[in-house]
């Protein structure tokens, strides 16, 4: 009883945890397909792919991606090289210096990115001035500064990844290569580097991702080369559109794809190893036999499902046209707006009549006439959205707007942006 209660609470906890972790991503991804011009899912209007189209026509985003790729490549090269050198140094440095050295190379992980960005900017600006170079020199170039600034701490991550594998390296292998006539460079290239390759690949991926998503450091150093993250931040700060959701969806999808691919590959290697150990695995009897790649490989199955889903989606996007639906929604909104205006008019009419009646009855003593208690009346009048006949959020066209909903629209930023 007690243990089953504990188990249930663990699962509930896990569910809440992962909902917190993944929920935002799922919701954000979904908003990419809603035709509402504000990223949201709750008033679902129409399934649309227009945000993707819009995304691919956004020159600033495309330029940001280009800059991010250039800077990412530079950062990967520099930080993997420095991380590897740092790791090699750590394994052979004089013991008395080791603690100090380790503290220095691990510190950038803990230094706030903002500080790294500022110190990079200030330091290279000073070097630039000391060398008497102008404002357009390489040292004040945004790409250079960003690569340098990001590599400062990304190299520490790389170093941690690389040193973990380097500790398993037998230095006798390098000595054996030297002994057989190899130069130090040959021994490095032919023996150490192949051994380190998996870790170098991990470090490179890590470095690229860290560079790609970095904002705090880059925001001080990017100069005339805004990265994708910088462009996104600008957009998000000054008004959000579902085109960003579309980009997010693509990134999420790519991430999931590569994660599954990697997992499927690992799983496959494990299965192959297991099969070698136990040749009997093949003969499991007359059950339904999946191709060997899939057998017991959940990730591979998911990968295929994922691929099919992608193809379906792209296929649908090619033929699907939400125009009709969007037109319907627009029509509905227009009708609703009209109806509201009508209602409003009617209300005013009634009020006027009432007032007239009161005035008629009580003469000019009607100063304290009851004000309209329904806020939506006022809100509707002042909501520019309502006048534009556009982006009101209420989906239930049949129901009259109630409560504060109408009032809230006044502050709804997208009611200003109008309809797409």
């Amino acid at each position, binding site marked *: 009883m007690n243990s089953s209660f504990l188990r249930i609470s*663990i699962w509930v*906890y*896990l569910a809440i*945890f992962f909902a*917190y*972790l993944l929920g*935002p991503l799922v*919701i*954000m991804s979904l908003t990419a397909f809603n035709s509402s011009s504000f990223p*949201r*899912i*709750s008033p679902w209007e129409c399934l649309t792919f227009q945000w993707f189209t819009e995304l691919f026509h956004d020159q600033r985003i495309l330029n940001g991606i280009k800059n991010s790729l250039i800077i990412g490549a530079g950062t990967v090269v520099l930080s993997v090289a*420095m991380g590897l*050198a*740092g790791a*090699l*140094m750590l394994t*052979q440095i*004089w013991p008395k210096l080791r*603690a100090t050295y380790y503290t220095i190379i*691990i510190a950038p*992980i*803990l*230094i*706030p*990115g*903002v*500080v790294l960005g500022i*110190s990079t*900017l*200030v*330091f290279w600006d000073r070097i630039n*001035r000391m060398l008497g170079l102008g404002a357009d020199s390489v040292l004040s170039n945004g790409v250079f500064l960003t690569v*340098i600034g990001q*590599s*400062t701490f990304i*190299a520490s991550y790389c170093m*941690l990844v690389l040193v973990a594998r380097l500790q398993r390296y037998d230095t006798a292998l390098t000595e054996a290569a030297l002994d057989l006539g190899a130069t*130090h460079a040959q021994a*490095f290239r032919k023996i150490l580097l192949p051994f380190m390759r998996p870790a170098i690949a991990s470090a490179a991926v890590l470095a690229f991702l860290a560079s790609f*998503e970095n*904002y*705090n450091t880059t*925001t001080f150093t990017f100069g005339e080369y805004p990265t*994708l993250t910088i462009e996104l*931040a600008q957009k*998000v700060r000054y008004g*959000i559109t579902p085109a960003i*959701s579309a*980009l*997010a969806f693509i*990134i*999420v999808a790519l*991430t*999931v794809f590569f*994660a599954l691919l990697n997992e499927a590959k690992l799983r496959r290697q494990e299965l192959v190893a297991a099969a070698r150990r136990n040749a009997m695995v093949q003969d499991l009897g007359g059950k339904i036999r999946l191709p060997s790649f899939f057998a017991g490989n*959940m990730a591979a199955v998911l990968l295929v499902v994922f691929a099919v889903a992608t193809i379906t989606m792209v296929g649908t996007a090619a033929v699907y046209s939400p125009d009709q639906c969007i037109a319907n929604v627009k029509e509905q909104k227009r009708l609703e707006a009209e109806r509201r205006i009508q209602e409003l008019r009617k209300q005013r009419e009634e009020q006027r009549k009432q007032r007239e009646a009161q005035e008629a009855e009580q003469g000019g003593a009607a100063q304290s006439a009851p004000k309209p208690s329904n806020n939506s009346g006022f809100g509707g009048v002042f909501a520019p959205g309502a006048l534009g006949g556009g982006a009101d959020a209420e989906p239930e066209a049949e129901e009259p707007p109630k409560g*504060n909903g109408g009032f*809230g629209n006044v*502050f709804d930023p997208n009611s200003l942006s109008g309809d797409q």
Partner: protein
Amino acid sequence: MPSFLKEFFNRNGTGMGLTILGLVLFWTIGLIILPQLSMLDFSFRPNLPPPEIGGPKDVYTLENYKYLIYGPEGGSQDYNTVDLRVFFRTLVAAVCVTIFNLILCYPIAYYLGQSKGSHIRIFAIMLIIPYWINEILRAFALRIIFGETGVLNTLFVGLGIWDTPFDFIRNDIALYAGLGYAYILLMIFPIYNVIESLDRNQIEAARDLGAPWWRIHWRVVIPYAKPGISSGCTMVFMLSAGALAAPQILGGPSSLWFTQLIYQQFNDNNDWPQGAAYAVVLLVTCILFVLAMMRLFKVNMGDIGK
């Protein structure tokens, strides 16, 4: 020392040795030490237009630090209450985020570290995926959820629980959720790494002796996981105190994060020395705070980053 260098070159060869040494020196001195010193130096200088830099007016001054404490000269107030309040609020909030993250992540790290099975790998992937998504997009996702017409408000208002949409952004709830969200992984992995190496038998033994579950954690697991916990807390604290993207996107219009002040000094006021001074204050305070905490909880520096 020279004998160490001689051995180093013997072992790596002259070319490789020079390459390694060059890269390490470039990194440690050129990218880590000198820029920090340069920023420190810069923070003690007045804000001068480029032609005057190095000129007679370019003297060391405490002005930039004074500004943080006393505000502009001849200002109406005795102290720079606005900036100081932002500064302390940032630190307190960062501590809160760290504690929140620890409470949230410790159980899952423990669960992952002590369970076996293939679903653990799936969990691990699910943990890592959000971390691979852009920091800005993570904040953006939370803004969709916490926005005035966002998912939560629609849900609660729709269910009739609340009458009016709750302004998560103005109340900084979105900000704390976003900061917590951003650094979950940095909290989980160090703790997970340590707990994974904890011998299950220790827990079994404690359970055999009749210890209740909270006592097992308090007396066995947490002391063992201390290096991981301190490592995770340090990283989360430093990074959330130094966060910029989440406060910019999720912060309310009236509540600033200290990094935003630094950002303003650089980008809006164009007062680099002032910004550098603020950055130095942030860095030094955070480091001192972390060191104090490490001393309080008796943790070694060497445990961090493992």
